[in-house]
């Protein structure tokens, strides 16, 4: 076996794909990736190739998601499901520490962060970008989130480039995909050519190379990189949505009284689904949960949302009382003030917030409406 370097490309035949699982498991990784459950493709623990969504795809539009059979046996022939990798790095509910009485004082025991290193199999380009955004949130500043950092450092990222886009995808607009740019340990492109089914694997890091040392690989053909590029181009050309990001920061922040906010607020359920499925949304609440005898108290962190009244509750009153104020907060933060806060957009163009909104609110449509319809001057002035 030759020694692989970053940037090297090799071919993994479909019938050898199980050996990738075995190699990961032998190195101590718990493999997590796509699997079919309850009518959707979700990310969960995988024990082998048979757990993958073999021959399945998804059809997505605003407020609607359906699984469908493919005509082939593709392993990664779908786009993205309801749950991002966020749930593994930043669990939806997590005990942070426990405090117990100790005479007149108390003792705090931090929650250990353990568990095996995870191999994320099947990360899309937009999802790598999503993790990168959350890395800045949880590890980028002076206060590093210890649990996130501990889990994140142990993750192996196996990216799969998209060969097709979903009905709500717009990664091209956000500059995050569908081709994998950076941040993956291995970059996989699935190739289905008549009866031949193989994967072009590109090494992204020394950790990725180490995994491949025990996997049977073939040399890539001279035209394989061009084939991968063509597959990615096909996905890029089939985006279901587009978002014009030109000047979007000022566009949104200078239109806080635009009549469109009222229109979307009438549809918004304030149900939190968009924020829950978003791979970058990071809001949480922390609460102390004491036992009845107050001998022990646990601090829990749970996913929270800017659509919840409680998120802005101070002195018993919510600051953002209306659907309008909460939707506007979410969209302006995601697409505008996120730049001020973290130096990047909070949106990676995965389209989950569009698909999984029960009433199909589409942020690309909302931004387009704010861009094209000028605010009514009388209303705007009247409110000032």
């Amino acid at each position, binding site marked *: 076996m030759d020694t692989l370097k970053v940037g090297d490309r090799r071919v993994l035949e479909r019938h050898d794909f199980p050996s990738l699982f075995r190699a990961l498991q032998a190195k101590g990784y718990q493999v997590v990736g796509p699997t079919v459950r309850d009518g959707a493709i979700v990310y969960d623990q995988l024990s082998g190739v048979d757990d993958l969504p073999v021959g399945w795809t998804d059809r997505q539009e605003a407020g609607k998601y359906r699984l469908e059979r493919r005509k082939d046996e593709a392993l990664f022939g779908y786009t993205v499901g309801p749950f991002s990798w966020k749930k593994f790095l930043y669990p*939806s509910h997590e005990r942070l520490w426990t405090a117990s009485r100790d005479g007149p004082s108390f003792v705090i025991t931090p929650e250990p962060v353990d568990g095996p290193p995870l191999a994320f199999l099947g990360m899309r380009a937009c999802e790598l970008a999503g993790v990168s955004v959350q890395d800045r949130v949880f590890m980028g500043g002076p206060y590093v989130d210890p649990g996130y950092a501990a889990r994140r450092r142990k993750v192996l990222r196996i990216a799969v480039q998209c060969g097709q886009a979903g009905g709500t995808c717009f990664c091209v607009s956000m500059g995050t995909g569908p081709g994998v740019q950076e941040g993956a340990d291995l970059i996989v492109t699935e190739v289905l050519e008549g009866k031949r089914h193989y994967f072009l694997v590109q090494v992204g890091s020394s950790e990725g190379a180490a995994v491949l040392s025990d996997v049977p690989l073939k040399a890539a053909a001279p035209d394989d990189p061009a084939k991968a590029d063509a597959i990615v181009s096909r996905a890029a050309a089939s985006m279901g949505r587009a978002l014009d990001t030109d000047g979007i920061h000022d566009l949104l922040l200078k239109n806080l009284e635009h009549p469109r906010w009222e229109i979307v607020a009438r549809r918004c359920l304030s149900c939190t689904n968009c924020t829950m499925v978003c791979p970058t949304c990071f809001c949480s609440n922390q609460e102390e949960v004491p036992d009845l005898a107050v001998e022990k108290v646990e601090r829990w962190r749970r996913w929270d949302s800017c659509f919840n009244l409680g998120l802005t509750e101070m002195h018993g009153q919510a600051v953002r009382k209306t*659907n309008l104020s909460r939707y506007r907060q979410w969209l302006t933060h995601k697409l505008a003030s996120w730049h001020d806060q973290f130096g990047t957009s909070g949106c990676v163009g995965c389209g989950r917030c569009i698909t999984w909104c029960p009433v199909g609110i589409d942020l690309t449509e909302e931004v387009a409406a704010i861009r094209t319809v000028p605010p009514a001057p009388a209303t705007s002035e009247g409110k000032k």
Partner: protein
Amino acid sequence: MTEARKPRLGVFKFASCDGCQLSILDCEDELLAITGAVDIGDFREASSAVLEGPYDLSLVEGSVTTAHDAQRIKEIRAQSKALVTIGACATAGGIQALKNFGNVDEYRRVVYARPEYIESLATSTAIADHVPVDFELRGCPISKVQLLEALSAFLQGRAPNLPNESVCIECKRRGTVCVLVAHGTPCLGPVTQAGCGAICPAFNRGCYGCFGPQGTPNTASLTAELKTLGMAPPAVQRLFRTFNANAPAFKAASEAAVAEAKAP
């Protein structure tokens, strides 16, 4: 410290099925801790021993459906430092509030052999419609976890940490695939308050709203979506008219569906 009098707890029943009181007894592992923390003064579902009021905390189950009960809740309130309603009946009038939408005299004649024996108000109403309520526990029945949190909060002199967010956030936290978006199943989760742990969608059923309206329920928008899923107005009306039919937001939603069904 240990000699101090323990807070006295009363548990009172109005028009209800007793299921929420049973949720207290269902706290099997925590029951000893509860009885260690409070003196149970009056809890007839559990014990015939009764301690006189006043009560530091009264848990009230059930709705007000008789003139006698409308008076009795005032007496209980007068005997209670804090009063917490438990369940959909006490908080919104319960399933029996369906009578609010009908003609009670007609029901009485049809159902009872001797209707003149039945003394009943025309409506089933929430406890808060009659006396001030300090906190409301939602659900049909209530959640044991929420009950323990409310009890702890009361004993510790703090506000209960029970947010009025939607059921959707619980589905997402537990990793349930959205039954509305992925299956086209009608679901009240987006307008219903969390607290149950999103049990029904986890079993591929739509939420039927037993915890009542969430903090800012947009029933008009959800109704429009339910119609695109193929629900006719009478079906929407029935969906909103179950355990929390008389909760203001759900009542308005069902009445809007009625109006639409009648519209030419």
